Structure formats: structure tokens, C-alpha cells
């Protein structure tokens, strides 16, 4: 436990380690090679991050292979991976998957599913609507139907999903529905799915959301890769045609787990936004120092210099807000809903603005395929839309700060 903004020496060292690893294992040529490959990442590099460096589960508990360090350390790692655009199932496995699994009451499921993600041996994806800036139960598009197994005759399946003393085997579920924009969904070994529990055996509790696990090889599962603007990040449309699923969390636990996951994801994605924006600032400043026009470096022109100064201000403020979020969620120093929405609304704007400014500082070269700027520009606008737009988060803040609390 440390006070806000007092990064430990271990965290400073962690940043150096991950930056050096990314520079060696994922230079830009490699990012470009992978973004054109079918899978989109190098599983060997991913598992080195998990097993050799041990940086994929820093906030996961130690008993599940994590480091129990908390979100600040995980944010430092994600900031550096974002800086270098390291390809891999970061969103699906780490930011969403490990977070959701780590929040489950079901310790058996955690013990079974988390270690693989933390070690980078397996990958996960979460099919749940988080794009409005929080978990939105009303937007769930999958339905779960409970089936009573013959083996458990004499026991009634509990429609709210609580398992009977004999264990989960008494009630089985199948899922129906389709979910678009599932991050890292095409290649994931494990799909975590939010579904509304209904079906033949239930007569009450309609509309309660549960969280389910589906195996990649489950019958009736169809995954279609969606062509993405950001080629370094994969998405899929995932359809479930009576796919057998295992209940991980019933209502109301599932909703709480997914709300927590949305908050954590908002903060961790903010760290990625900071790292990538910092890279663009560095790149722009370097270019402004060396590119000559009218017989002098363009950085000596105030129009360019002030653009760079504004980028610096955006990056520094984004960093403050992102890490405030990480500390707040770790140590309870702020309302997590406020800290998360602050992080996303500030960092989404900062990264998209910095990306646009970076292209401008570079002139024509910044618009070419060869130049890195467009990779970051695409990442910026994609990130801003993943877990709620800046406006969606500001609407949440308006409710929390102005409507509910008056002036805090």
C-alpha cells in the first residue's frame, strides 16, 4: 500500500523492464508483421510476458498465479505495452477476463480458469455490453436456458442459478444469441458471456443476468472475425446456437462482477491510452527538433511548439487521472464509479487529441502507411469507443456529481 502518486522503486523498475522487453520483442516491424497475420499476435511473446516476466497477472491474487500487487503495477505494465502497441489478447485476457474471473465468488472456477490467463498460456474474451461506460444489463443480447439434468432428479434447479449442494452439475445451461464487437473473441480459448437467464424451467426471475463460461470448442459456437480499423486489435462477432455453458455467477452477483470489471477496465485502458499518447508526444517532439523548413527546425515555430506544449499538458493530465483511478480502485480512496469515469473521459479525449495533433506535426509523412502515426491514431479512436465514450462517462459523472450529490 502506498500513497497516491508515490510509485515504488519496484514499479519504476517494472516500467523499465517492460519497456526494454517491448523494444526487443515487439519492435514496430514486428507489430506490422503481426497485424497482417491471421492470428494477430505471437503466442510465444505473449506467454513470455506471462511466464518469464510475470506481468499479465500483477493484480490477480497469488493463489491463482498472480502477484497480488494491485492495479497500479498492472497499469504501469499496460502503459508500456500500449506505448509499443504490443500485440496480444490484452483486452480479452487481462483487462477483462482476468478481472472478471478475479471478482467471482466461485473459487473453484477462479482456480481452474485464472492461472492460464495469468501465465499467458490461454486467452479469454468477454461478451458483455460495456460500451456505454459501465455494464449495461438491458443491452445483453444472449439468453441462457436452464436444463435440469436427469442425474439430479429429486432436486429442483434453482432458477436464479444458485448451485445446489451437489454442485453445478445439477443444472445445465445453454446460450442463444449473438454478440458483436467481442474483443479478442475469435481466438479466445475461453468465452465469458453475460446472458439473461430465462427458459423453460424458470417462471420468475426473468431478466436476471448471469455470467457464463463457454469453451472454444463448444458445439453451436460460431465466431466470425470482424475487420477492424485498428489492425493491431482483433474483434469478433460471436453467436451462440444452444451452446452448453457453465454458470460462473448468478444474479445479482454477475451484475456486480461485471460492473466492477467495467470500472477496472476503464482504469486499465486509461493507462494504455497514456502510454500510447506519451509515445506520440515523444515522436512529435523528436520530429519537430529535426525536420527543417524555412531554414530552421519546425519546432522553433510557435504554431508547432505550442501544439507540442498542448500535447504535453494533455499527456500529463491524463497520467494523473489514470493513476488516480488505479490507486483509488486499489485503496478505496475515491468512489470507484467516479474514478473510473474520470479516467476514461479524460484519457480518451487526451489520446485522440494527441493522436490528431501528432499527425499534424508530422505533415504529409504522418499520413503515410509507413509512418507509425496512423497505427496510434486508429488505436486512439478505437480505445475511446471500447468501454464508453468520453461523453458516456461524462453523463455518468453528471449523474453522480451534479444530479445525485449536488456539489460534492
Amino acid at each position, binding site marked *: 500500500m502506498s500513497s497516491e502518486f508515490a510509485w515504488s522503486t519496484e514499479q519504476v523498475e517494472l516500467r523499465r523492464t517492460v519497456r526494454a522487453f517491448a523494444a526487443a520483442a515487439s519492435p514496430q516491424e514486428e507489430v506490422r508483421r503481426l497485424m497482417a497475420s491471421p492470428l494477430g499476435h505471437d503466442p510465444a511473446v505473449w506467454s513470455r510476458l506471462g511466464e518469464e516476466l510475470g506481468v499479465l497477472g500483477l493484480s490477480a491474487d497469488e493463489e491463482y498465479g498472480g502477484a497480488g500487487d494491485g492495479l497500479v503495477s498492472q497499469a504501469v505494465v499496460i502503459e508500456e505495452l500500449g506505448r509499443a502497441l504490443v500485440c496480444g489478447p490484452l483486452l480479452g485476457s487481462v483487462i477483462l477476463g482476468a478481472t472478471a474471473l478475479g471478482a467471482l465468488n466461485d473459487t473453484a472456477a477462479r482456480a481452474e480458469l485464472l492461472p492460464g490467463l495469468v501465465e499467458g498460456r490461454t486467452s479469454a474474451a468477454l461478451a458483455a455490453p460495456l460500451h456505454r461506460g459501465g455494464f449495461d444489463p438491458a443491452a445483453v443480447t444472449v439468453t441462457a436456458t436452464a436444463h435440469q439434468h436427469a442425474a439430479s432428479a429429486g432436486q429442483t434447479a434453482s432458477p436464479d442459478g444458485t448451485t445446489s449442494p451437489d454442485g453445478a452439475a445439477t443444472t445445465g445451461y445453454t446460450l442463444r444469441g449473438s454478440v458483436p464487437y467481442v474483443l479478442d473473441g475469435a481466438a479466445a480459448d475461453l468465452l465469458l458471456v453475460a446472458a439473461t437467464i430465462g427458459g423453460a424451467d424458470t417462471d420468475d426471475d426473468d431478466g436476471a443476468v448471469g455470467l457464463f463460461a463457454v469453451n472454444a470448442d463448444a458445439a453451436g459456437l460460431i465466431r466470425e472475425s470482424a475487420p477492424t480499423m485498428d489492425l493491431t486489435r482483433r474483434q469478433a462477432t460471436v453467436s451462440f446456437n444452444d451452446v452448453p455453458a457453465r454458470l460462473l455467477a448468478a444474479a445479482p452477483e454477475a451484475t456486480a462482477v461485471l460492473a466492477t470489471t467495467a470500472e477496472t477496465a476503464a482504469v486499465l485502458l486509461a493507462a494504455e491510452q497514456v502510454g500510447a499518447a506519451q509515445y506520440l508526444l*515523444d515522436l512529435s517532439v523528436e520530429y519537430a527538433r529535426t525536420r527543417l523548413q524555412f531554414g530552421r527546425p519546425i519546432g522553433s515555430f510557435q504554431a508547432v511548439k505550442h501544439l507540442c506544449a498542448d500535447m504535453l499538458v494533455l499527456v*500529463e*493530465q491524463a497520467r494523473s487521472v489514470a493513476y488516480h483511478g488505479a490507486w483509488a480502485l486499489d485503496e478505496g480512496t475515491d468512489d470507484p464509479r467516479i474514478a473510473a469515469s474520470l479516467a476514461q473521459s479524460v484519457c480518451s479525449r487526451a489520446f485522440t487529441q494527441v493522436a490528431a495533433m501528432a499527425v499534424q506535426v508530422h505533415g504529409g509523412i504522418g499520413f503515410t502507411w509507413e509512418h507509425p502515426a496512423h497505427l496510434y491514431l486508429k488505436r486512439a479512436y478505437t480505445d475511446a469507443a471500447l468501454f464508453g465514450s468520453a461523453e458516456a462517462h461524462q453523463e455518468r459523472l453528471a449523474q453522480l456529481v451534479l444530479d445525485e450529490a449536488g456539489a460534492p
Partner: protein
Amino acid sequence: MSADTADALVAAGTSQDDDRGSVERAARGVLAGIDPATTPTAEFLGACYDAGLAWVHFPVGFGGLGLPAGLQAAADAILAAGGRPDPFLNNPIGVGMAGPTLHGHADEELRAKLLRPLYTGEQMWAQLFSEPGAGSDLAGLSTRAVRDGDGWVVDGQKVWTSLAHLASWALLLARTDPDLPKHRGLTYFIVDMHAPGVEVRPLRQATGQAEFNEVYLTGVRIPDTQRLGDIGQGWNVAMTTLMNERSAIGDSALGRGSGTIADALGLWRDRPDLHSPALRLRLTDLWTQAEAYRLTGERARVARTAGPPGPEASIGKLVGAELNQKIYDFCMDMLGPEGTLYDSYDDPADTLQRRFLRARANTIEGGTSQILRNVLGERVLRLPGDVRVDTGKPWRDIPRG
């Protein structure tokens, strides 16, 4: 920027826990001994000074405890909660700028004489830097100081001198060698505002008030013992003052919802009749920006060690000034026709309208926003300087107007 600013902001203390404890004990000790509610401001602040809690990074006996500056916040939090009057508001130029400048550049005798009444507010301070011909280009100033025996004789005119009408002392930057390039011919002094030849004329500003003045210096004698730094080193000393000015102005308010955003939030709370959906979103956006500003201030505070504030302090000044203007723009728009009224230009009350007008100066005073962006670009990001037509030329040959 090759190294992350984060790295620079990282280093601050994990091993400061013991020191923090002693700062907190000292602060509670002051409050236990003397009650700010029933004690005159100067007396209470004097007790804080004597306990070393004025600037904890100053030496013992000079208002400090010889500890890292980052621990100041620990003392301030306790003392402010206990009802301490704000020493900065009480004597802004003294506490914000003159104190750190004296600490960095004055000899022991001057510091012993001046720091305590400065902190208590018994002696107010002003800053005699800007001139009619030298604002952003401060180093181009014309006020002359000529050696005369064991002292100096000063002639010139200063302008925009805040609080000069109340000040006992002032920080003065004057030219001692017009034949050198402009930055090298400057020397730094402190001047007794009651000395013969110092004439203060109030200057009325857009709000109707006269917070600042013109100051005419005519044959003013200054003993050489009141020189800070070497002859010709005035610019370096002035940098200490300006960096502290920017960080003093730029220091964000301590708690969420405090500072100028409180005015907008208060208006929103008190006037539901003026609510609209568009204003609601605009205020939320301002609140978000105020939080980003506040948290960045917190981060800089945590990182601040015993060293003086560096160029990164300019981030806070720049952001805070522009944010203030946006906040009061919002208040004016929310007030609508009510905002068009102004109670009195002779003696205006401290209304939102007055604050709105006053905020226009925020992006000018203490370095304009354009100059601050230059500072961020050149000193923090190390971008090349602008083309200069005055480099290397003797000051007397530079065009002025």
C-alpha cells in the same frame, strides 16, 4: 522528451514516513498551544513560523525544518483544517515569491530580518519587475541601477505592480550594465518601499478596482547589502522568483470541488431555475477538467523534493488560468441577463461578475499563456528556440517600443 516525466515525478518519497510524522506532530503542537479563532492572524502565523511550518524545506530558525518540500502539504492539511488563515492570500507575493527567493539568494542576516514579518503578513511585499516597455520580454527592462559608494541609485518606471500601495518591501530587477546583452546586464535587489524617491500611483483595472500600480523610482538609494546574487546575475535570481510565482499561482486547490470550480458548482446548486441540459454537460466537462488539474497538482506535490519547482510548474499555471476563464464564462452564461448587471465600479462587491472580469487577467499575469507554452516547449520538451533578433547584442542597441 526522451525520459518520461513520470520518471521524474516518480522518485519522491517512500522513506519520508518518519519526517512526515514529525511535521504532523509539530502542526498539532501549534494548534494545541494557540487557537487561530481567537488569535490575531500575525500572531498565529508567527507561531507557525517559529515551529518551522512556514516552509518546511527552509532551515530550522528560518521558518523551516530542513525537510523535503513535499512534506509541506502534510503541515498545511492539518493547520488549514485547524482554522489557520491562508498565509499566501495574506501576503501573496511575499509568501509565494519573495520567501523562496530570499531563501535561495539572501544572506543569513537579511533572511533573519525579513522572513518572519513576511510570513506573518506584518510586512507586505510587491514585485517590481514589469515595465511599460518590458512585459513578456522582462529581460529587456530599462530601469537603471548605478553604483554609488556602498550602495546603488535607481531610476526608472515599473508598472502593473500588484499591492505596491500596501507593500513594505519589493523585489526589484534593474539594469546595471546596458552594454552587455540583455540577460547579462541585470542585477537583483530588494527595495524598501518607504525609501525616498519611491512613488506609487494606483492603476485602475477592468473590474473597477486598483489592485496594481505604477511605481516611479527616482534617485532611490539601495544599500549594497540589499543586493541578491552577484552583479550581473539578476536574471538567475529572477528565475527563482518566476518559477515560484508560476507554481504559487498554479498550485491547484486541495480538495475535490474546491477552488474556482466551487463557484460554478455553487451556482448550479443554488439556482435550479437556471438549469438546462446543455449547461449540465458543460459543467460536468469543467468539473472533469478541474479534477485533471487538481490531480496533476497533487502528483507534482508528491514529486516535489527539496529542490525548487522546475519548468513543469508551468503546466499548472497554464491549465489553471485557462480553466478559471472557462469556469467564469460558464457562470456568466448560466446567469444570463443577471450577469449583465454590475453593482459598482467604485467599490465592486466580490460577485461572480467581478470574478469573471478578474479571470481575464489570469492568462496574462505571471507569464502569458503564450509565453508559458514557449516555456513548456523549450524548457520541458527541449524544442529549439524561436529566431531571436536580440541575441548577443548589447542591450542599448535593441529596438524597443
